[in-house]
Every structure is written in C-alpha cells, then in structure tokens.
C-alpha cells in the first residue's frame, strides 16, 4: 500500500513556482495495474517522479505526505519520500520512456544492469548475479546474448524489453512505467505491454503506467487516474471510466477517441490547458468546460466519491457542491 495525501510538488523557476503536481491524493493498491492519463504537460511525469521519490531541485515537495509500506520478509516498514532512493529497484522501480536513450552507448548491457542491482545483498557476487540475470532473461523469453551487447546493437523494442527486465529483476512491489511504449510501433508496443502485464500477474505487484494513449489504458489497466493541469480530476475503475465517465474532461477525452465503424468526425476539446505557472483559482478545466458555472471559476471542486471506488472533482456532482459548501461554512465559523 502506498498513499499520497495532498501532495504538492512544484518546480522552482525564475518566474515563480510551476505547479506540476498540485494537491494530489492517491491510493496505490497492491496487485493492480493503475493507469495515469492526461495530455502532455499535465504533470504525469512529475507525479511519477514524486512517487518514485526522485525529488531533486528544481523540483520541490511543498507539502503533503507520502507514505509507503514496504514488506520485507514478513515485516512491514513505513517509508517516506526521503527513504525511497535507498530502496529503488528493490521496492520501487522505474521503466523509462521508450523514446529515450537511457542506455550508455559505450557500456555493455550487463554492466548497466549490474549498476542497478548489485547494490543489494541478496543479489550476491558478480558471477552469481550474472547467472541470475541470465536465468531471469530466459524466463522472460529474452535472448541471453543481449547481456554482452552494446545498446546500438539492439532494436528499440529489445532495448525496452531489457529495461523492463531490469526494472522487474528484483521483484519490486511497485513498478512505475512512464510512457513505456511511446515511439514504438504497434506490434512492439503490444509485446512490451504483454510482457509488463505478464510480469505483474506472476509477481502480484503494482504496476503504474503513465500514458497519453487511452488505448493502452483500456487494454491493460484496472484502475485509472485522469490528470489535468497538475490535479487529479477523476479516479476510478477503468471500465467505469470508459463506460460512465463522471468528469466533463474525461467525458470529452473518451468522446474524442475513434471507434470502429463510426465515420463521423471526432470532436476535440477546444482551447488549451492552463499554464502551470499561474493556474486559474477555481477548477482548472473551467475555461474549456461547456458546463462551467459561476462557482467553477471561484472555488476548486474537491475529489468526491460518486459511486463505489469512483471519484471525480466537479461541481456538477451534488456531493462536490455539498463538500465545498461545508468547507466554506467551516472556514467562516
């Protein structure tokens, strides 16, 4: 179990703080695939950084709490954001964007592999690790020869598979995948996604997948969090998000997806997302929202439960209105 409570993480810039993660609360559960969706620049990658515990200047954790429960030999230890770098790869691991050149061009794959995993005692000495890594690659149907190869000798898909293998080798409880299939062709994409889901099923751990591709989310995730302008606007079971989206932004996002057999032109969402440097005071989606009311530009709608395990942040929901009202009354008295 991993929880984020009212987390605010800003980038310091000369023009003021960039509010990339602005008051996000999220519960990450064991044995699930959680999707984080949203358009470019909405703060998805920053949220992943925060969850990973990679908070370095200019990124700063302004407020909020991060609480991770790590199970180790039956014992549970509670970790905060600061402790996470010590347990990278062992407790929480990271699969980078496929489009990035994250492998050192002048080092053999095996050495880059060892760099990440040899810090841990259970991995044993070098020869033992080599054998374990080779066994693990075989388990994942990857050729063992890739270990001796240099990055340029592997295809983009193979490089990404190696990175997935690296991220899952130590059986971490949480695997973060940031756009793991972007820039790969659809056949390779499918292979990578299947590999990720297969690993998740065997290990029974948590996979958090960030993507702007709604198709990816539909295919593999169990639960989804929709992010807009640094905030979560809707969190719920994937199936419900696609069949009964609650937030206007999610609704429009789903509507814009093409469907087989439907030849009518797709509608986009007009306007642009707000600047994270100076977001509007109320609901960040209000300027583009067809249902915007007066209150939307004044107060921020809280994330409230609409149905079982399905939360949304919009004043169209009576629950949100009531919660905002209660808050206002509370503040006045």
């Amino acid at each position, binding site marked *: 179990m991993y929880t984020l409570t009212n987390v605010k993480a800003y980038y310091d810039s000369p023009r003021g703080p960039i509010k990339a993660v602005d008051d996000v609360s999220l519960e990450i559960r064991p044995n699930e695939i959680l999707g984080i969706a949203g358009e470019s620049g909405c703060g998805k990658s920053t949220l992943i950084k925060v969850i*990973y515990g*990679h908070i370095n200047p200019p990124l700063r954790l302004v407020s909020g709490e991060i609480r991770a429960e790590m199970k180790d030999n039956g014992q549970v230890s509670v970790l905060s954001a600061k402790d996470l*770098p010590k347990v*990278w*790869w062992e407790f929480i691991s*990271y699969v*980078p964007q496929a489009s*990035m*050149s*994250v*492998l*050192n*061009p*002048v*080092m*053999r794959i095996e*050495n*880059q592999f060892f*760099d*990440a995993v040899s*810090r841990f005692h259970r991995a044993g000495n070098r020869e033992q690790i080599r054998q374990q890594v080779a066994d693990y690659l075989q388990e994942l149907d990857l050729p063992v020869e890739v270990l001796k190869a*240099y990055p*340029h000798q592997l295809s983009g898909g193979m490089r990404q598979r190696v990175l997935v293998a690296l991220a899952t080798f130590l059986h971490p409880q949480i695997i973060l995948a940031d756009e793991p299939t972007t820039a790969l062709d659809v056949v390779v994409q499918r292979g990578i996604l299947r590999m990720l889901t297969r690993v998740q099923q065997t290990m029974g751990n948590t996979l958090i997948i960030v993507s702007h591709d709604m198709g990816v989310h539909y295919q593999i995730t169990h639960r989804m969090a929709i992010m807009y302008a640094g905030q979560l606007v809707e969190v719920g079971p994937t199936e419900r998000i696609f069949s009964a989206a609650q937030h206007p932004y999610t609704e429009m996002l789903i509507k814009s997806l093409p469907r087989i057999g439907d030849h009518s032109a797709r509608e986009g969402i007009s306007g642009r997302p707000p600047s994270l440097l100076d977001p509007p005071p109320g609901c960040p989606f209000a300027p583009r929202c067809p249902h915007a009311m007066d209150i939307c530009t004044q107060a921020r709608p809280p994330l409230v439960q609409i149905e079982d395990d399905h939360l949304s942040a919009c004043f169209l929901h009576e629950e949100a209105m009531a919660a905002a009202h209660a808050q206002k009354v509370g503040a006045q008295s």
Partner: protein
Amino acid sequence: MRFAVFLLSRLLTYVIVVWIGMTAVFLVPRLMPTDPVSAMLGRVMSQGAFMEPAQVEAIRASLTASFGLEGTLWEQYLGFMRRVFITFDFGPSLAMFPTPVSQLIGRALPWSLGLLLASTLIAWVLGNTIGLLAGYHRLRAYSKFLEGFAVLVYPIPYYILALIMIILFGYVWGILPTNFSMSPMLKPWTLDYVWAAIYNSILPALSIVIVNFGWWFLSMKALSSTLAEEEYVDFAKLKGVGEGRIMSRYVAQNAILPQITMLALVLGGVFNGALITEILFSYPGVGSLIYSAVLQADYNLLMGTISLSILAVSTATFVVDLIYPFIDPRIRYR
C-alpha cells in the same frame, strides 16, 4: 578476417598519404625559381674566395650530386624516394656542411620529444580530469571560476605568455633559467645530466602546459557538461549509481573519445618540435633546427624535417584509426 581487411585498407591509405606528401616535398623546392646549387655557389663566391672556372665546375658537380639533382627529374625522384624510405638520408646539411641531415635531426629530436611528450601528456591529463569535474559540476561556483580563469588565460598569444613567464621566473623572481644552457662537461645519463636537463626544461614545459591545459580543460568541460545532461546519465542516477561511477563510466568514457583523437594528432605533431617555444627558450630541439634551416636556406635540412613531420602526423592518424574500435564499441572494423 574483418580486422585483416580493415588493417590492409587503412595501411594502404596510410602509404598513399605518405607517398603523396613526400612527392610534394620533392616537387615543391624544384618549382622554386632559384637553383639551390647556384645559390650555394654564389654564397661561397661572395665570401671572396677566388676560384678557377674548372674548380667552380667541380664544386657545382659535387654539390649537384650531393643535393640529389643529377639526371632527369624522374631519376631524381626515384633517388629521392629510395633515400627517404630506405636509408632516411637527406644528404648533408648545407648550412652545417658536411654534417648529414639525419644526424642533426637525430641530435635535436630527443630534446623535442622529451619536452613535448611530457608537457603534452601532463596538460592532457590535468585538463581532462579537471575539465570533467568542472563539466559535471557545471553549476557549482568552482566550475564557473575555473572556466573564467581558462577563458581569460587561453586566448593570450603563446609568445606573450611565454615572455611574461620568462620575465617573472627568470628576472623578477630569478628562480628558473630562461635560456637552455647545459654544461658540455656533463656526461649523458648521469644523475647530474638528467637533473640539468629537467631543470633547464621546466620553464618551456610549464609554458606549454599552461596553454594546452586551457584548451583541454575548455573542450573537456564543454563535452562533459553536455553529456551530463544525457538521458542515460539521468537514468543512471535513477538506478542509484554512485556519483564517482557516473562520472567515470557514463560521462568520462563518452567524453574522452574526441579527446583521444586530438591527443594522438597532437602527439604526431610532437615531431615538428615547438617552433616558438624552442626559439624563445633557446631550446636545442627540432623547432630550432627548422628555424635555422629556413633562415639559412638549408634545403636538405628543411626537407628532412618536413618529411619527418609528414611521416609522424600520418602515422598518428593511422594509429588513431586502429585504436578507435577498441575505445568506442560503436565503431567496428569494416
């Protein structure tokens, strides 16, 4: 097999380059309007010696023979090539007649090699190490200070810097000799001899180190500060790799590649001597030799030193080609 093909093709290129270079060395002096034999004779005559026409003809013939100017151009060319590639014999020096050119070069070369190899390598190691640190920590104060210093020192013309050093070390503080002067009484390779050689070389070596350091530092800093922002460096941090290892294996190993190429080329140039350094510090190296050869129109000596330089630079390039696949896995023998 692949390696053999690669080696042969590179070797062929190497031989062709050297051959073209040597042909140019052979042809260019022959395009000059002055005839070296007449020039030499004129010089001898102008010193006031009276000679019979027959004597003059005899001297002309012997000079023509020793300059390798007998026969047709083709015969001269073949003779020249044989001498260059087989015996490395460029005939006698004209200015220091009849000392052979090869002997003059042989005497000057060790001095140039000692001075330049040592100072080049010291500057390379220092510049790259400090440049790597400063590039990796590009946002820290010491990095900015060092860069400011290097940018300030590097553009100073070498001869000005050297003169300033001579004034400071030789006259103001008076701690180092400004002119190369070793007692002829010293026997080679005794402790005193080696010490005197080093002592006399400190100032010229230091001046070369300072100037070269600036270049290596600035280029390495630029390279490593770019590489420090590469995605694989960020990912290495996410892997939890220590800073020392990130610097050595992820940044330095990539940044050093062009630096090795440059070093090899510079080392090839070591055989040219260091013209200005050697003149300023009266250093008995190849640079001084070239200088005097030019001043005294010593064709043979000039051709000898230039041939040596062509050979050295092309050999260095050839060696770089050979070692590159070992240091950069992306380059294969093809």
